[in-house]
């Protein structure tokens, strides 16, 4: 009897081990659910520039969380640039990062003329909300500011993508994010501008265990990997929103 039980136990153990071997952990592929990477709102100017001129000038207006340590290539703007060049080899991609550290959406709108001076980006990716949430700016004022900003950017002839706050599990007891996320979703909807839901994506990564965002370590490896994945996801998002089919582009050339 004992022997049979032992055999069964061994067999079970074996089957679990082999099952585990079959499902080897997926390589760090930055999986994002499709619904977070698709949008109904289109980037027509981007599509046109890519098809007719073969170039894409992007400006990222962001706060401190648009970088890892400094404004180098490791932040998501730089990673997006690399991913876009990779996916659209025939297109001249150029990303310009405008860091607006410790500035609320209202401050940024106030300086917008200065930020845009002498530049004609086809696409502006505006990452905002963090500073406003930290300072508990009245959500009404935040809404007015984002609304004004998107209007001004569109008037300049640019397509606009809004990017919301980072998700940070330890930040939840300290920063009230919900009203700011709501406002950004709303303004994006009203202007038919695509919203890159950084918050939901990072939340998903944390839930599924792709990234341990609770991590306490001071090393910058985790931050670098997260930004890399964000950059890739953002590139996919932009291509999807512009309804560009990389394969078609290649055959056109």
């Amino acid at each position, binding site marked *: 009897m004992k022997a049979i039980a032992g055999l069964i136990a061994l067999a079970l153990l074996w089957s679990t081990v082999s099952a585990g071997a079959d499902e080897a952990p997926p390589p760090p592929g930055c999986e994002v659910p499709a619904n977070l990477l698709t949008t*109904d709102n289109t980037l027509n100017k981007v599509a046109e520039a890519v098809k007719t001129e073969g170039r894409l000038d992007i400006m990222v207006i962001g706060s401190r*969380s648009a970088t890892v340590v400094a404004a180098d290539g490791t932040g998501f703007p730089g990673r997006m640039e690399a991913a876009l060049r990779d996916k659209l080899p025939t297109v001249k991609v150029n990303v310009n990062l405008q860091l607006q550290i410790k500035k609320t959406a209202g401050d940024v709108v106030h300086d917008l003329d200065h930020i845009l001076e002498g530049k004609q980006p086809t696409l502006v990716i505006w990452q905002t909300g963090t500073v406003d949430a930290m300072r508990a700016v009245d959500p009404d004022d935040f809404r007015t500011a984002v609304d004004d900003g998107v209007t001004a950017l569109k008037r300049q002839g640019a397509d606009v993508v809004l990017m919301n706050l980072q998700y940070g599990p330890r*930040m939840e*007891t*300290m920063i009230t994010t919900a009203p700011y996320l709501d406002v950004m979703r709303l303004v994006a909807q009203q202007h038919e501008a695509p919203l890159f839901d950084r918050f939901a994506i990072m939340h998903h990564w944390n839930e599924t265990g792709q990234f341990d965002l609770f991590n306490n370590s001071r090393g910058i490896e985790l931050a670098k990997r997260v930004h890399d994945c964000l950059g890739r996801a953002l590139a996919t998002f932009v291509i999807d929103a512009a309804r560009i089919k990389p394969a078609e582009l290649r055959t056109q050339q």
Partner: protein
Amino acid sequence: MTSVTDQPAGGLAESAVKDRAPPSSPVQKAPAPVGGPAPGERELRLDLFRGLALWLIFVDHLPPNLFTWLTIRNYGFSDATEIFIFISGYTAAFVYGRAMTDRGFVVASARILKRVWQIYVAHVFLFTIFLAEISYVATSFENPLYTEEMGILDFLKQPDVTIVQALLLKFRPVNMDVLPLYIVLMLFLPLILWLMQRKPDLTLGLSVVIYAITWEFDLNLPAYPNGVWFFNPFAWQLLFVFGAWCALGGARRMAPLLSSRILLGICIAYLLAAFFVTLTWHVPRLGHFVPRIIEQWMYPINKTDLDVLRFMHFLALAAVAVRFLPSNWPGLRSPWLKPAILCGQHSLEIFCLGVFLAFAGHFVLAEVSGGALIHVVVSLSGIVIMSAAAAVFSWYKRVAAKGGKDAKSAEANADLAGGGS
């Protein structure tokens, strides 16, 4: 529940009448303020809904998880805060209104101020716990991914200013906004009650006027380090005063209105419309079905200033609840609802416990970094702990009341309405 038999037959009208009028005969005979349940009787529906509101507030304060989908804010404009403030206004007016009639303005005011003090102490206690948690995070958490967000902890560099601002109710960290609102509302309760007992409709009218002025001129109280109170007391007083108005006879007068089929139809239509609009937030593709004009008019639905749409949503919910849940509904006696009712009967204690458990829950989730399962376990155990604590409080009150019946009678009466003394 002798009053039940006094009412005309016809289940719906009857239930509407009984709903908000305190369930005892004195109410029916004498004008509102003196009415109150006979000892041992209480409006269990108020307790039930307040208990549920406390649970929902707790769940909403935790990081989003499976349980969050059960909270009413996902199905309409208003959420548990509206329920909590309305019922608080109702029970406070009910308890202290009677005290004011029996013992006079000064004594009743003194008792209200004592209550305000208790709530204030509770708030300071919660703030202390918050400070401990934040300081822990500040010293142990240095992930460079969140360098920007950690800037929020800069206030720890000036504890002198921060603590004083917290004592002044101007610095209120996340999830600690409801008690300061409650404190301010209670502070004005003596005035509200005094006027309400003489001119109830005028009082309610004044409240509406203040609400309107608030919207017109953007009144609010300043917060620290900047911004304004998350729950604007000038706006939220409307729900509190409306609760008081209902308690002091308004509900009885509204009974015919509440039993009308047309009103029920309007309420249900509005709730469905609100549900659909909420759905478009979660499924943006549906957003195209909402006409642009309505969108422009409707948004933003402002929680800080208690948007009219939120207030209406609460009214519609309340009207429907009153209609379909008569106060003699047998389910109110069922052991399944007992935990929620017990929680509603000790609202201040359970509210504070809920905020504390939400902090603790965040902490546990951060340390364990578990998945959805741990989230559910944390939510469930929070609710169980709240219910168990409420059961202990009830047990203690019973024992204490037995011990010193005469000395304690005033307090025991006050406790009946869950407003405490």
